[in-house]
C-alpha cells in the first residue's frame, strides 16, 4: 500500500514538472492569445466577403436569472442570441449564471470588471440590479430581456415582446382546427409575461367565434384568472392539467409554462389531440412532439439579443424600448407542424389576420 502511494506521488510530481516545462515553451502564443480572440480571427479568414462586419474587440456578455442558461426556455433562447452574435460578428463573450437573486448585482458587476462592452440581463427579476448597474457603469451598454423601464437611462434598453399578437393567430388557428369546440391553455405563473400569451390566444378564439358564429370554448384562462402549474419545471403538473382539459373535451392544448409545458404536449400526444408550443419552434426544440403540433408561438429573444449586441458594437445603440411585434419579426408564428394539415383557405386567413394586426386594424393584448 505504501509503495503504491509513493509511486503515485512520484508520478504526479513528474507530470507536474514535465507539464510545467511544456507550458513555458508555449507561453508566447498560447496564454496571451487565449481562446476568445482565437475564434474571431478564424471566422474572419474563412468568410471574408459575405459575413457581417466583424467586431473582435467588442465583448458582449450575459447574466441569466436563477433558471440558468440551460432552462430550455427564455434564458436559453436569449443565450442563443449571444452565441449567434459571437458567430456572426466575431465578438468576444462572457457570461454569468445566477442561482439566486442576491447574486444578480455581483454577477453584473463582475462582468463589468471583466471589461464587457455590452451586457444583456435576462428576465424581470434582474430589473433593479440592471438599472443600478447601468447607472453605475455609464460606459457599458445594457439590455434586459422581458423588462421595460418607465424612464431608462441612456445606456439601458428594454427588450419586450408583444407575444399576444402571434398568440392571437394561434388562438384563431386552434379554434378553426378544434372539432370538439373546446380548447385549453395553462400558464406557469400568473405573471404578465405568461398571461400575455393566454390573453392573445383567448382573443384569437373569440375573434373566430365572432366571425363564424361559432362557440369554441377556452379552458384555463378567462382574461384575469385561470390554470397555472405554479412552477416552470414540473412537467407532471403540466401533464395533469392538460389531461384534465382533454377529459373536458379539449382537443387543442396551448401550454405557456416553459419546460413544465412539455407535460402538456405529452398529454396531447398521448390523447391524440393537438398542441401549440411557445417561445421557440417546438419542431426544433421539442422535436419528439413535432407530429402533435399545429404550430408554435415564437418569441424571438435570440433575434432581439443578437440585434441589441450588433447595435452596441456598431455604435447604433439607443435606450429606446424594443418591442418585438409581428411587423418587425420579433415575434412570429412558426411553420405549421408536418401533420397539422392546414388547408389553403385557413392559412390565407391567418396571413390576412396577421396583416390586419400589423396594420392596426385588429388590436390585440
Amino acid at each position, binding site marked *: 500500500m505504501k509503495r503504491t502511494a509513493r509511486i503515485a506521488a512520484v508520478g504526479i510530481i513528474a507530470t507536474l514538472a514535465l*507539464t510545467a516545462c511544456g507550458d513555458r515553451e508555449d507561453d508566447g502564443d498560447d496564454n496571451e492569445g487565449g*481562446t476568445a480572440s482565437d475564434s474571431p480571427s478564424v471566422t474572419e479568414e474563412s468568410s471574408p466577403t459575405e459575413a457581417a462586419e466583424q467586431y473582435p474587440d467588442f465583448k458582449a456578455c450575459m447574466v441569466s436569472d*436563477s433558471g440558468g442558461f440551460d432552462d430550455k426556455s427564455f434564458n436559453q433562447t436569449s443565450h442563443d442570441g449571444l452565441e449567434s452574435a459571437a458567430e456572426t460578428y466575431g465578438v468576444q463573450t462572457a457570461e454569468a*449564471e445566477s442561482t*439566486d437573486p*442576491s447574486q444578480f448585482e*455581483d454577477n453584473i458587476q463582475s462582468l463589468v470588471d*471583466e471589461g464587457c462592452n455590452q451586457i444583456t440581463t435576462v428576465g424581470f427579476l434582474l430589473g433593479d440590479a440592471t438599472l443600478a448597474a447601468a447607472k453605475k457603469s455609464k460606459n457599458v451598454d445594457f439590455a434586459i430581456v422581458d423588462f421595460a423601464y418607465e424612464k431608462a437611462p441612456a445606456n439601458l434598453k428594454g427588450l419586450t415582446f408583444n407575444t399576444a399578437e402571434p398568440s392571437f393567430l394561434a388562438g384563431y388557428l386552434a379554434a378553426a382546427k378544434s372539432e370538439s369546440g373546446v380548447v385549453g391553455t395553462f400558464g406557469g405563473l400568473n405573471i*404578465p409575461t405568461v398571461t400575455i400569451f393566454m390573453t392573445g390566444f383567448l382573443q384569437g378564439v373569440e375573434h373566430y367565434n365572432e366571425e363564424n358564429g361559432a362557440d369554441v370554448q377556452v379552458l384555463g384562462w378567462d382574461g384575469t384568472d385561470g390554470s397555472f402549474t405554479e412552477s416552470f419545471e414540473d412537467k407532471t403538473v403540466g401533464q395533469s392539467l392538460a389531461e384534465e382539459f382533454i377529459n373536458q373535451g379539449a382537443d387543442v392544448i396551448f401550454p405557456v409554462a416553459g419546460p413544465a409545458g412539455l407535460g402538456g404536449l405529452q398529454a396531447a400526444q398521448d390523447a391524440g389531440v393537438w398542441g401549440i408550443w411557445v417561445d421557440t419552434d417546438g419542431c426544433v426544440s421539442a422535436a419528439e412532439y413535432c407530429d402533435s403540433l399545429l404550430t408554435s408561438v415564437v418569441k424571438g429573444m435570440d433575434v432581439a439579443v443578437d440585434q441589441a449586441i450588433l447595435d452596441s458594437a456598431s455604435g447604433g445603440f439607443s435606450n429606446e424600448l424594443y418591442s418585438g411585434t409581428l411587423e418587425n419579426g420579433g415575434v412570429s408564428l412558426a411553420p405549421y407542424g408536418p401533420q397539422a394539415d392546414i388547408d389553403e383557405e385557413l392559412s390565407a386567413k391567418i396571413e390576412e389576420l396577421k396583416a390586419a394586426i400589423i396594420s392596426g386594424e385588429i388590436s390585440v393584448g
Partner: protein
Amino acid sequence: MAAMSPTPDAVVPETEEEPKGRDLRSWLPTVRDTALAIVLALLVGAFLIAISDDDVIEALDGLFSNPGSFFVYAGDVIRHSFGAVWDAYTALVRGAVGSGSALERTLERSAPLICAGLGVALAFRAGLFNIGATGQMLVGALACGYVGFTYDLPPGIHLVVAVAAGMAAAAIWGGIVGVLKAQTGAHEVITTIMLNQIGRFTVLYFLAKESFQRPGSDNLLSPPPAENATYPTIAGLHLGIPLALLAALGVWWLLERSRLGFEMRAVGANPEASRTAGMSVAKVYIATMAIAGLLSGLAITMTLLGLQQSVTDQVVGSVGFDAITVALLGRATPLGTVLAGLLFGALSAGGLGMQTSAGVPPELIQVVQALIVLFVAAPALVRGLARVRRRRNGDKPERAEQAAAEAKGATA
C-alpha cells in the same frame, strides 16, 4: 451510496469529542479529514475542468485519431489540462479573496449560509434533521420584507422591527415542525420538506396581492426595503455579517453553557433516556425547531436588508439547502459552521470569478461543494484514498482517548 445521504446519526457522533475543545489533539482527525475532503474534491473538480476544456477535447481527439504521434498529443492533453485547471483555480482564488470587493462578496455570501447553517446544526445536535431552512427563510422573507417596505419608521427602529418580524415568522414556521414532532411524532424530515413547499406557495399567494407588489406592476416582485430598514454599512460590509458571528457565539453558549442546550444534546443522544431522566422531550423539540427557525429568519434578513433584495419566490435561492451542507461540513458545531459557511461563501464568490474570467460553468462549484460533503461523510473512504491511516498500534491510543472522552462526557 449510503454515504450520499448522511443522516445526523452519521455526523453527530463525530462531535462527541467536541466538548473537550481545549484538547487540540482531539480536533486533529476532524480537521485532517475535512482538509483532505476539500483537496480531494478540488482534484476531482480539476479533472472535470480538464475534460470539459475545448483544447483538451481537441487534443484528445487528435490522440485517438493519430495514435502514431501519441506523445505529441499526449503532451498537448496534459499541457492544456493543466492550463485549464490553472486558469480556473487561479480565477477561483482571485474571485474569492483576490481583492477587496472579492472578499466583500465572499463575506456577504457567507453570512446567510452561516446563520441558516447554524439553524440546521442546532437541530442536528438535538437529533433533528432540519431540511426546512428554505421554508423558514421564505416565510421570514415575507414578514421581514413586508415590514421593510410597507412601514415608515425612524432609522434603527425600523431595522430592528423588520429583523424581529422576519425572525419571529421563521421561528413560528420552524416551531410548527417541533409541535408536530412532539405532539404526533410526525417525522421532521417529512414535515420540513412539506413546509418548504407550503412556504413557497404562501409567498406566491401574497406576492399576487397588490399590497405586496410594486405600484403599477403585476410582476411577482415586492418593492425593495426602505432605506431605514437596511443594515448599515461599514467599510463596504453590512452589519449583518458581524451579526452572523454573534449568532454563532450565541448558539455556542446555548449548546455548551445553558441548561436548554444540555437538554438538547441529551435528547439528541437518546430521547428515551432523557425522558426517563425527567426532561420534557416535547419541549426540547419545539424549542429547538423554533430557535432553528429564528436563525433561518436571521439568515434571510442578510439577503433582504443586507443586500437590499426584494421579496420574490426565489429570494432564498440555494441557501436553504446549502445550509444543510454547511452544517454537515461544520460537524454541527458553531465554530465549524462558521468556517464551513466562510468556505462555501468563498467557493460561491470564487465560482463567479471562475465563470466570468475562465468560462467554467457554475455547476462545477456545486459539484465541488457536493463532493466535499461526500468525502466528509465518508471519512473511511477519504483515509483509504489518501493512505493516511496510521499504523495499527499508533491508532489505538487515539481510540482509547476518544472512548475515555466519551465516557467522561456521559458522566458529566
